[in-house]
């Protein structure tokens, strides 16, 4: 057994792996002492919190919301055939996702958390909540319009058949 494979067995990866990670840790330590110089605990909390925020807070939150939406709107779940699935739940899921995303990024302005905003910029602070609500409304309306158009399109063959039957009945009279 060569020395390298012995190292791999004990360490679990190649020596290059170790060297690269150690180099990155050295850089992180060099920048990290400067980052933590000041409010050490605050910065450390923000850094670790940022790592956990999505995985332990946002993800459970939106996973549960999505599950609830599927319960409520997922009537056509598990449809037959090879066609890509198009359950109705996506017509709620997509606008909800986009609206939530806009709020996640712009919440300080939308929820009027920035007290000095107007004093600093000379711009009114009261417009963001209205904009966000109107965008959200527009997203749901657009989604509903697409759903209606899709239903209309999908029911095309049935409607044509019904029309044909009516016409046939008329002709025999």
């Amino acid at each position, binding site marked *: 057994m060569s020395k390298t494979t012995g190292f791999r067995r004990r360490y679990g*990866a190649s020596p290059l792996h*170790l060297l690269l990670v150690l180099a*990155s840790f050295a850089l992180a330590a060099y920048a*990290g002492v400067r980052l933590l110089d000041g409010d050490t605990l605050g910065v450390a909390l923000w850094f670790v919190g940022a790592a956990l925020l999505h995985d332990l807070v946002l993800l459970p939150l939106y996973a549960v919301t999505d599950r609830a939406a599927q319960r409520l709107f997922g009537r056509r779940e598990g449809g037959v055939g090879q066609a890509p699935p198009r359950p109705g739940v996506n017509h709620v899921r997509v606008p909800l996702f986009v609206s939530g995303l806009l709020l996640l990024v*712009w919440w300080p302005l939308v929820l009027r958390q920035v007290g000095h905003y107007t004093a600093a910029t000379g711009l009114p602070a009261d417009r963001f909540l209205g904009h966000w609500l109107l965008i959200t409304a527009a997203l749901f309306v657009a989604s509903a319009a697409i759903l209606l158009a899709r239903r209309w399109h999908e029911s095309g063959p049935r409607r044509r058949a019904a029309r044909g039957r009516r016409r046939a009945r008329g002709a025999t009279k």
Partner: protein
Amino acid sequence: MEAGDGEREQSGRTSRPPSEPLKRPGFLTRLVAAMDSAVASGPPRGPARPEFWRSPLRGPWLTAVLGFVLLAGVTLLFVTGLLSYAAYNPNLAPVNDQTPDKGWLGFYLFSWPTSPYWLYRVNQGVHVVLGVVLVPVLLAKLWSVIPKLFAWPPVRSAGHGIERLSLLLLVGGAGFEFATGILNVQLHYIFPGSFYVLHFYGAWVFIGAFVVHVVFRLPRALRAVRYGSAQPEAGTEEAAGLVSPRPAPPTISRRGALGMVGLGAFALFAVTAGQSVGGWWRRTALLAPHGREPGSGPNGFQINKTAASVGIRPGDIGPAWRLTVRGAGRRVVLTRDQLLAMRQREAALPIACVEGWSTPDQLWSGVRLTDLAALVGLGADIPHALVESVQRGGAFSSAVLRDNQVRDHRSLLALRVNGAVLSYDHGYPARVIVPGAPGVHNTKWVTRVTFGEPV
């Protein structure tokens, strides 16, 4: 205190039978044994079990596609971020440097050019808009690899352990950089310290882990993309621990999910980018902080900080206001009328903020900085200049302009803009405007310009 320590010592000694201290296995051996038994008994119920994760979307193809978008995006974010720091000319003077302890992290700094004059404007617009637009991609990427967070056993080997530590720096660094950046552009200063310090050093902590991650994962990501979007069997090496062994019936296709992420990115772009373009497009920036003009007329363009918000008093900029020009051992004091009597020059230049918003070109008129230098006898080889505002303190109440900035013929001490006298909020009686400089280096309410002194 001492008694307490003694007690603990005592109990520690009594818990260990004196007859067999050497026979007890070492900590490492016990740890390895505990790990082996944990692995043998399988993961505990819950997220550590692969079948806990039901989404049929998760798999190496989706993760790789999102990874490649982030690879390109984060690289561009890092480069524009480094350029943004260089634009302040931090090595020129302490007042220009918000992170004076940077040491070797400033190794790449160079003199910031004045041409093209839109360089800083485009750089900051790209940096901020791209950062905002990448949020859904980052979230989707984190969602796509969530089973790995709970992988069992938590640490397989020393190599796996330190790689997971590196991932803490990667994910924590990414979240930290996005959070501080997005909060700062909204003036919501709730983060624990100066934005410049946190965002600059945070970026360096992050980027090492980012490079490591790219090097380790790029081959696998390339394989996954070449393999195509067909899902590999759960539990195989190609599945990379991402594919669910018990997938729920799909409610959306993988391309559909990517489309949803793309739509989110587009929506963020649509409500943000207008503030970096200006003109008609500004009104499309419905949720961005500088999505409308503060007024109309010649002075109706974006304001970074109003006169009132930085404590400018009417007396500071009233008839008693004077401009002092110093350099080469001389000193000249001028009234506003004397400045207006000098030769007035014009320059069409934008205001561009570190926060990503900017204005289209405004037509400034005033006295060239080179003409001010000539007042104190400086002709050729005009040196750098310290520009000071009547502002009382504050981070950017003064700035040092490099010689190439002072010598540029478009660099003005402006008295008028778009044909009108400067408004108070835009720096009346006089402000500096320099091509390509960060907004805060275009000092407002200027009271003193000092050429060539050590700063």
